[in-house]
């Protein structure tokens, strides 16, 4: 076994993304893969490299010669052996920290006959299944609260879809998010500190080392005094406010004033919470009871905080970006923000305890670290709810579908969405996919076309039709699993699995449709 130090080095590049918390979530996860063709094998390979806890590979087939042409995890020694076994042993070789096992069984049979098989898993990655099995598996997983990632490669197309009742994210880690400086709504301690700086001071060294937070708070107050207590809001006012900032510069090279000009809009940020957060705190799930998840208990407390303690604002995040400043002023500012964040967190903690008590749970059931992390991310919470797959198939969101069918950028992606369903019906009728044999392709096209049009008209979409060329492509693909496409789809499936397991970042919301023709892949939320 590797020492802790070696492990840290080995996972260094990913620990910088999801931290030790995320890593330990991965190490505690138990993943089941259904079918280990190239799509499934590649998905699992990425997870095994990242140090996922346990894997179970389920596949009922033996390795045939064509498997060697698209699956890197199989080699010539594997021919005739259990595919699940061979893939499993290669995966084990990739990372000996992972507990790997295999089950030589056809996934459809397990879904049909032993739904309880799935209950031990954190997450199931189901690859290359057809509609009927996916719908059944979705029901099994929802029932048992298991996360499901469906992935499929088919010629130059493919798809990935997540299914579960609800996924809540505290650490959504968005790329660009406005920092929480409260320049529009500063609290007394912050104002008090800002006032210790006199912007008309003449010492040029001190002047150019006054952090822009201090500059903006002072000038915003000055502005408000001259404007009946209001902050700049119209375009002209914002421009005038910038002129006010410029008027305080000693020379045009003062970096802190340049930063103040760039950040001047932060003074005009509307008070209160975003519409996304408002939606979350008004979700029906905040009527918490003893069965509610910790996340919703926290959201219930957050709502109380915003309404009673926060003056309409969520708990302060507590961190500030780097800015031109003397070390001393910057460190003091940091401490002022941290202190406010800590006191907000304490208030939240009290509210959490009283809610827990009210719903009959141990008041200390939720750790302080969890509450702190929640407060730090309160403005960035995310909730993903997924329709069950059967509902999407029987009644997809028609306006959305219609919109995509009429949008040139979406036409291949949505066409493939319909056609993937069409080939499954074709397979149900003919016991094989269209175009799997060479020759007779034109007949296959004329068999597939009415099925695809049938699906559209069942949904009441009589207007738009599918491009004939795309139907031809689908028959040309002949259910092939190209390695490059499988690696792409498997890559997306593993990426989503990581987000679900670590509960960090925001997972895919609809059906990701891969378009290998011109790479204009799309997400359809149906």
């Amino acid at each position, binding site marked *: *076994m*590797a*020492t802790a*130090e*070696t492990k840290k*080095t080995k996972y*260094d*590049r*990913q*620990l*910088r*993304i999801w931290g030790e918390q995320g890593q330990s979530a991965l190490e505690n996860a138990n993943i089941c893969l259904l079918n280990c063709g190239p799509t499934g094998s590649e998905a699992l*390979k*990425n997870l095994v*490299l*990242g140090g996922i806890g346990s894997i179970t590979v389920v596949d009922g087939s033996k390795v045939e*010669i*064509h498997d*060697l*042409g*698209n699956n*890197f995890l199989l*080699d*010539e020694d594997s021919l005739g052996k259990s595919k699940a076994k061979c893939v499993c042993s290669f995966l084990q*070789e*990739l990372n000996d920290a992972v507990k790997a096992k295999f089950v030589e069984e056809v996934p459809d049979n397990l879904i049909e006959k032993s739904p309880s098989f799935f209950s031990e898993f954190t997450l199931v990655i189901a690859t290359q299944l057809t509609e009927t099995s996916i719908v059944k598996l979705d029901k099994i997983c929802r029932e048992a609260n298991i996360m499901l990632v469906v992935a499929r490669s088919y*010629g*130059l197309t493919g798809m990935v879809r997540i299914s579960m009742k609800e996924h809540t994210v505290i650490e*959504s880690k*968005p*790329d660009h998010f406005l920092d929480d400086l409260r320049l529009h709504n500063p609290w007394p301690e912050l104002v008090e500190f800002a006032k210790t700086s006199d912007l008309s001071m003449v010492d040029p060294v001190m002047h150019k*080392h006054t952090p822009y937070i201090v500059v903006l708070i002072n000038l915003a107050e000055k502005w408000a005094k001259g404007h009946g207590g209001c902050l700049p809001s119209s375009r002209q006012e914002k421009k005038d406010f910038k002129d006010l900032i410029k008027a305080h510069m000693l020379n045009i090279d003062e970096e802190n004033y340049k930063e103040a000009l760039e950040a001047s809009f932060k003074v005009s940020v509307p008070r209160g919470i975003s519409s996304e957060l408002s939606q979350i705190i008004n979700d029906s799930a905040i009527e918490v009871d003893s069965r509610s998840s910790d996340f919703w208990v926290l959201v219930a407390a957050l709502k109380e905080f915003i309404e009673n303690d926060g003056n309409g604002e969520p708990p302060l995040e507590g961190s500030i970006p*780097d800015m*031109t400043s003397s*070390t001393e002023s*910057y*460190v003091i500012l940091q401490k002022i923000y941290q202190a406010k964040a800590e006191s907000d967190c304490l208030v939240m903690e009290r509210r959490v305890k009283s809610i827990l008590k009210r719903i009959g749970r141990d008041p200390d059931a939720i750790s302080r670290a969890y509450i702190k992390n929640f407060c730090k991310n309160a403005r960035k919470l995310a909730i993903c709810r997924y329709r069950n797959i059967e509902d999407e198939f029987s009644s997809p969101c028609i306006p959305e579908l219609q919109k995509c069918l009429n949008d040139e950028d979406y036409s291949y992606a949505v066409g493939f969405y319909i056609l993937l369903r069409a080939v499954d019906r074709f397979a149900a009728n003919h016991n094989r996919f269209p*175009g799997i044999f*060479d020759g007779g*392709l034109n007949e296959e096209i004329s068999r597939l076309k009415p099925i695809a049009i049938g699906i559209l008209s069942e949904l009441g979409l009589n207007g738009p039709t599918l491009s004939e*060329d795309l139907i031809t492509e689908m028959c*040309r693909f002949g259910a*092939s699993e*190209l*390695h*490059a496409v*499988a*690696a*792409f789809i498997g*890559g*997306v499936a593993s*990426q*989503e699995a990581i987000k679900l397991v670590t509960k960090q*970042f925001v997972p895919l*919301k609809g059906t990701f449709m891969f378009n*290998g*023709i*011109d*790479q204009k892949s799309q*997400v359809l939320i149906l």
Partner: protein
Amino acid sequence: MEGLSSDPRRWRDVDKLLSRPGNIVGQDFEPSPTLREDIGDVVRVLVVGAGGLGCELLKDLALSGFKNIDVIDMDTIEVSNLNRQFLFRFYFGILDSEIEKMELLVLREYQNSLFAWLGTDKKRDLIVLSASMLRDEHRFCIVLPPYQHIHQHFTIYIYLLISGVRIHDVGKSKAEVAAERVMKRINGVNITPHFCRIEDKDLSFYNDFNIIVLGLDSIEARSYINSIACGFLEYDEDDRPLLETIKPIVDGGTEGFKGHARVILPGRTPCFECNIWLFPPQVKFPLCTLAETPRTAAHCIEYAHLIKWGEVHHGKSFDADDPEHMQWVYLEALKRAELFGITGVTFSLTQGVVKNIIPAIASTNAIVSAACALEALKIVSGCSKTLSNYLTYNGLDGTHIKVTDFVRDIDCLVCGPGTLLELDTSTTLSQFIGLLGEHPKLLVSKASVTYRGKNLYMQSPPILEEMTRSNLQIPIFHLMDKVPKDTLHISGISEKNDKKASCLRKLRVVFKGVADEALKMDTTESS
């Protein structure tokens, strides 16, 4: 086993795409049951980089029908590569009965037990060849005794395993190990590794490839390969690119959950330099902030790294790969942070800041490489449309893919028809090299000059410099066989925003007087 690799049933899936006609395909697509074999036999592909993307690319290309692949990478394998560079191992192939020599990575806590074991009589025939210190491990090279039976090797293996010893790849050439591993698994594919810098190869090396696929993490390296590929591009009199001189590049890149894949057809789609603004330069901290007003942990680290190191270690340069150097910087940064009341300095952050570490994970690399390999297959076969021309992937919030059709910069120094230079027939090569440093569009110093593959003057290596030095005083008109106009290639150091980088440039040289007619044509067309 040769039979199996050429058995067409093996390639059933990819053959469907290559042998069947379709209506959404490239212009030059000629589907045929032998297309894959033809591509395999004829096409030579170069993979630049054998890291996170490179490992994936080699696998993806080899399983897409490419058979002649070269891979170039100057790096050796590190422990921190193993979370994504799946061709590299901690232990591999130990049970091979032919193995005589093995490298072992011994965790520090197991060293004593290994030494004790090596010291016993029975095991004395195991010879330690070399040992070197890593951060937390010792590396040994051990020669196995010539045992007759594999089970005896197996005994050793088991012992080593329970002693915490691993056969490992750390320290070996990425290109060599990656090539070996892929060839071992995919019979019939030929991968030639090049364990060297991309600058070590000459133009003819690059010209031998039909397509170049990049799995790099540096802007400079991308820029270099781009300029080489664009250097092969030729234009006709009407400034139209000659199709047969186009050397396609497929470029991938990742950072955390984000990545890009792009197709560069020099002369037809934007080259790397045309959209260089897509890669903004890294922001550096002002030295006065580091020295006088540090505010963040990173400021303290950079102070220790850039200022304090030099003050204390006179003349000894800092080596980011030396764990002792890194530890020193970390401790100095910690001291400085304490002095100023700054929090957050950790060893991990120190490494991140000093080495400018870009986070990397297996899944993003897999996604981007797969997109690149698919485009490479489409470019050489025409089996579908090609990406036009820049794909970005973002997995931070959902799964977002965006394709942007960027436009070329017609005046691009690298992929454009070239910078026009008017010269007197009397201009010597030495004067010409001087001109390159002053020309506002070029600003290339220390230039080496090549004409139609012939070195007119080379700055290095010394032996070539000596051989070409005599050309310096000869008029360049004579060196170019007195043609009225032609294209020259120069390589040298370009200075942009105070940053020096090696570069290659293309010049269209026209001689005054001799080329009056040709010059007239040129200027009227370009206006």
